[in-house]
């Protein structure tokens, strides 16, 4: 289904009217659910995901079995359960999430790969050694998809883990970056693009990058389309910068929620807190 993005070169505006370095509207909420240890809801444009974190808790008998069989499970941490918490990630893509209803089983390899990516990125970032003999279960629900799915899932997971109060090194934030040239064209005038939607993802080469905090460190990098190696640098730079923007937005959401909780008296204000309530 080829789409026409050739108009980009005329006005330098994308199909949805954004410039090359514009993120879509990012809306997020944390602590959306009372029953869960941590939860979040995140929208990146029309991509909408929900995340629920349970744990650290005692591993359930059934969970461990699924973990190894389903691929999203303990995996690399399976042997090290004695001295660190294992992380189980479940991604459920709702049948109604895309334009045409399509049911994806739990054994879909694309979903399993996303589960593994998120699980491994978290394993390196969370201080799991503080919770030996336990499991942190992350269940993600995709309600609506319009590009940048993996990025949205990673961002929602980060928020939910913050809500659950699980210690981590820094935020892991993600976004996508693309390039206006297709792989065949070797033109030098190609512009990098930030935060692609489904239409752009189908037509243009793109990658998903996740970085740690404000640094340039790449926690995860996934590219599934054909692109010249010379384009990589430009796309990566734009992607990393996008991650920084996302981090600022997420940080703002966490801080706003925190000060609201203090004002409402849900948590005690302590002198150690460096949060200014005037924000």
């Amino acid at each position, binding site marked *: 289904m080829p789409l026409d993005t050739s108009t980009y070169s005329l006005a330098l505006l994308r199909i949805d009217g954004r410039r090359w370095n514009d993120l879509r509207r990012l809306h997020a909420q944390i602590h959306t*659910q*009372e*029953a*869960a240890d941590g939860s979040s809801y995140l929208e990146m444009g*029309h991509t*909408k995901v*929900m995340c*629920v974190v*349970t744990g650290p808790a005692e591993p*359930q008998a*059934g*969970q461990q079995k*699924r973990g190894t069989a389903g691929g999203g499970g303990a995996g690399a941490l399976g042997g090290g359960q004695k001295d660190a918490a294992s992380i189980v990630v*479940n991604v*459920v893509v*709702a*049948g*109604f*999430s*895309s*334009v*045409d*209803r399509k*049911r994806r*089983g*739990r054994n879909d390899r694309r979903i399993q790969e996303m589960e593994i990516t998120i699980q491994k990125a978290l394993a390196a970032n969370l201080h799991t050694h503080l919770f030996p003999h336990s499991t942190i*279960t992350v*269940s993600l*629900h995709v*309600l*609506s998809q319009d590009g940048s799915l993996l990025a949205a899932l990673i961002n929602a997971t980060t928020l939910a883990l913050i809500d659950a109060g699980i210690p981590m090194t820094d935020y892991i934030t993600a976004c996508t970056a693309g390039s206006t040239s297709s792989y065949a064209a070797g033109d030098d005038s190609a512009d990098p693009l930030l935060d692609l939607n489904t239409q752009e993802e189908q037509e243009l080469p793109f990658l998903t990058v996740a970085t740690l905090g404000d640094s340039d460190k790449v926690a995860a990098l996934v590219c599934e389309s054909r692109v010249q190696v010379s384009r990589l640098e430009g796309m990566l730079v734009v992607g990393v910068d996008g991650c920084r923007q996302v981090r600022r937005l997420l940080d703002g959401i966490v801080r706003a929620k925190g000060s609201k909780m203090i004002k409402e008296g849900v948590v005690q204000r302590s002198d150690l807190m460096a949060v200014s309530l005037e924000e």
Partner: protein
Amino acid sequence: MAQQTLLSPAELAYLHSSLSLSPPIRPDGRTSKQFRPLTAETGILPGTNGSARVCLADGTEAIVGVKAEIEKTADPLGDDGERYREYVKSASGVGGGDADEDRREARGEWLEMTVEIPGLRDDDAGTVFLAELLREALLADGELARKLWINRRFHWRLYLDILLISPPLSYPLPLLSLTTHLALLATRLPRLKSEGDEDPMFDDDWEAAPFLYPRQGAAAGSRPSITLLVVAVGDSILFDPSKEELAVADSALAVSLCEVRRERGQGSMEVDSGRELRLVAMRTIDPPSRLTPPGVPSTANLAASGTADVPLQQKQQQTADEAPQEGVWKAPLGGTPFAVLDSIIQAVLEKGGVADEVLDGLEGVDLT
């Protein structure tokens, strides 16, 4: 699915006896016919034909999305069936377009339903059972399938995807059922522009799309069914049981009922007279209480009595005689007495009872 609670036999016995009192004393202070408070919203997902989200006060949350696709109706009789029908028509002298005749061919398989519960496989027996239970209740009145009929060659296929977002804290049946009910009420299908049996053409304007279930006051007809979970503990009948209450239930029943609106007379000023409740389906649910370990009476307890030889004898006696001892937990055995079933049905269908209360509550939800 309704997982085991970590309650000791003594706790189970205590809970059971306090719930058997009249009036029963529930752990969360509700009355026997009170639902947990819930928050609901509809139309949360613009990409679906209809969607709803419901959060119960205990924190469980569900989202339902409805998607509709056009599908060609396969003729069960093949071409011969077509010819046969033509023959019948010409013979009986009935002209074409006898819509009522055709509408009866609506089939239940046009509604597809999936339930996703985090941490459970999608082909888990419990999940499949839940989906089938809800589907059966929705189709039981026969109205829903008929609404999906477009013309003799085409029909809508309706996909109902139910997501339980939170971990399954209590048996999620009532939550999922109420969410499904709301999602169906919020479902709109594009307005049909074509006529008769030609290939269907639809109006592009979403604003003009009619609701699957016409708005209140507009027309008569049945509404999507709701399924309530009712348990019996001793002589008490409790609605919307929590996990702990389910763990001591003598019997649990999923009762599905639907509301049928009668045509209101012109100029009738009565507001609430149009509602008539119909019982459409009922299923017994295996309560997890059957799997709980039995308590040991203190007379048989080694630590309590302090003598070694007597308890063994008594224990054997205990297993032999079926009579339950007061204050000692024993998992319920056997089926549900007919009198209990009867009183459950009475309680459900009671005018101004729980069902009315729930339906009134759901009606208050703003449908967008």
